């Protein structure tokens, strides 16, 4: 068994009066891909956004319970959210490169964290990150072009490069392929396979096939509750809950 990287314990999340997550407890293994599936509005995005505290920006959002990364409570008062996000990168549903050059997109993170001392270090980080995101060959001649001039799939890989530029342990992916065509999706999935040797990846997805292809463990969310979490093969071949069974066989969702 792999060592546990992230552990959520009894997590309740409220948006104002409305409760979005109910007593979610699960763990995620290091250097594995964990997929979160479920119908729209089931709370899987809310859950993933708790892991790097992106929900903090929503005034009315309130988080109860505990999330530990490497045994440290990320909601502890002495935890700086900027430091947390340096360790827990995120890729969003819609590609959101900065309207700056490709180079600047990747260099931004290292620069604000003071990771690169010299310009040459920064260039090396940018090149390495772009290579890891399997984008370097396509853009190496036009690093000064705007990041927004790339195609959708390239933009999303640029966002992945941006996320890994600060050398995180964990990468959160919130439906990273939902705005992409099948070919671009296949490239991102392939990339995830490479990245999991170095990073712990959590992916929220609408596509059950995608979850089955890329993940080792899968959690099924429904109406704000974590219905079931298990090895991916087990979830898709022999789910223990009737609702999971119904969802993966396409009876709802």
């Amino acid at each position: 068994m792999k060592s546990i990287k992230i552990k959520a314990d009894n997590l309740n999340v409220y948006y104002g009066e409305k409760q979005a997550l109910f007593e979610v407890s699960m763990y995620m293994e290091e250097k594995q891909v964990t997929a979160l599936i479920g119908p729209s509005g089931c709370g899987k995005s809310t859950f993933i956004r708790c892991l790097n505290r992106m929900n903090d920006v929503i005034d009315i959002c309130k988080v109860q319970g505990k999330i530990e990364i490497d045994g440290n409570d990320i909601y502890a008062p002495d935890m700086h959210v900027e430091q947390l996000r340096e360790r827990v990168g995120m890729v969003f549903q819609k590609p959101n490169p900065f309207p700056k050059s490709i180079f600047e997109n990747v260099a931004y993170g290292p620069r604000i964290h003071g990771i690169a001392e010299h310009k040459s270090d920064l260039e090396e980080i940018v090149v390495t990150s772009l290579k890891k995101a399997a984008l370097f060959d396509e853009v190496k001649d036009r690093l000064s072009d705007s990041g927004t001039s790339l195609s959708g799939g390239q933009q999303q890989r640029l966002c992945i490069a941006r996320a890994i530029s600060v050398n995180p342990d964990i990468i959160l992916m919130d439906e990273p392929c939902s705005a992409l065509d099948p070919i671009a999706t296949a490239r991102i999935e392939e990339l995830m396979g490479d990245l999991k040797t170095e990073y712990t990846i959590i992916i929220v997805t609408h596509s059950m096939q995608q979850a089955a292809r890329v993940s080792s463990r899968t959690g099924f969310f429904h109406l704000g509750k974590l219905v079931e979490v298990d090895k991916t093969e087990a979830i898709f071949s022999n789910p223990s809950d009737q609702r999971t069974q119904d969802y993966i066989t396409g009876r709802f969702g």
Partner: protein
Amino acid sequence: MTDRIEQRINSLNKRLNSEKRFRIYCIGAMSFALAWVLILFLNIFSSGYSAFYRTVIQVDVPFLNLIEDTTQFSEMSSEDINNLSMYSFSKKAIYRLFPDIEEKKDKKMLIRLFSIEFEQEIREFLKSNKSNINEAETIYLTASDDVDQVNKGNYPRDLDEDKRRIKDIQLLFFDDLVDRGLVSYEFNLPFLMRGDSREPELAGVGGSIVGSLFTILVVLILSFPIGIFAAIYLEEFAPKNKVTDFIEININNLAAVPSIVFGLLGLGIILNTFGLPRSTPLVGGIVLSLMTLPTIIIATRASLRAVPPSIREGALAVGATKMQAVMHHVVPVAMPGALTGTIIGLAQALGETAPLLLIGMVAFVVDVPQTPLDASASLPVQVYLWSESAERGYVEKTSATIMMLLGFLILMNLAAVLIRRKFETKW
């Protein structure tokens, strides 16, 4: 079946006709608005363009009569020249145009063909050419406003003499000078350089241009940073609660406050309580800043709001602080919009008159201001001042000032469009 098709075609024709009618209404509305703008421009231009040239009369000035040897001028300082008594010498130079005139009354009439500063003009000529003055020099002296207007054809010569400011004998002199080729036009540089004057032919718009520029500069320095920071705080950092709602409503209210109220505020607080100097661009700028701020804040907030939230999330997700996300990513994208709003606000301030009347920028100021702390007029107030004057010279100068004002406004709006085009983020 064919019935049905026919019915459809009828209905389609109806719809297409109504679309045609709608287009005609729209084009009509646009043409109407455009026609008024054209009429306005034509009207102002046709009555104002003549202010950009002026009538001068060529006079031979025998400097040898003033001094034994004209090379001595080169050794004199400007102050020495100022101390020379030149009034009767200058008058005599003018009398030489018509050596036959004997009567004092006629001589007076002749002198009145010229601007009252003729002595000063000869002195200035002497000062700037003192090193090579010949025995006699040809100097172009400014004609009086009446002559200027007669020459430009703006003056009804066929009125009865007692209804005219310019007398028959003066017209005789003038026509004779024209025949002798001594009357000419030149570009009216003094109009652009000088301050206001009681003499229409000497009044210039330079003082109010500089006053307006100083005022706008003060507005820019005050309202741009304050407006941008206020907008950033309200849009990006302020919690959404009753207090910020209240502030938001009041900023919108502030934008709708009649400008004269800001003038009263300036009079009561900035002049009387704080004791800042009256009639100055500094005070005018402060008052107009109050008026411009809401415009800038509203425009900046709108352009901040238009920045996709995903950009903020992208920055936050790599560990940027809130401030870094805003300053590095959101503000640069919003900047063209904020600048456009600022320029439009400044253009409004440039044309604003009422508040300036209350803080005393309506004063008669002859000197061109050197600093924002000097008393000064401004372009719109100059229009207001001159539009009340009876002399014909001021009529064309009023229109010419409006032309200058419109010119500045068009330039600023053009700048706003260009900035938006050039720096707008392409997604």
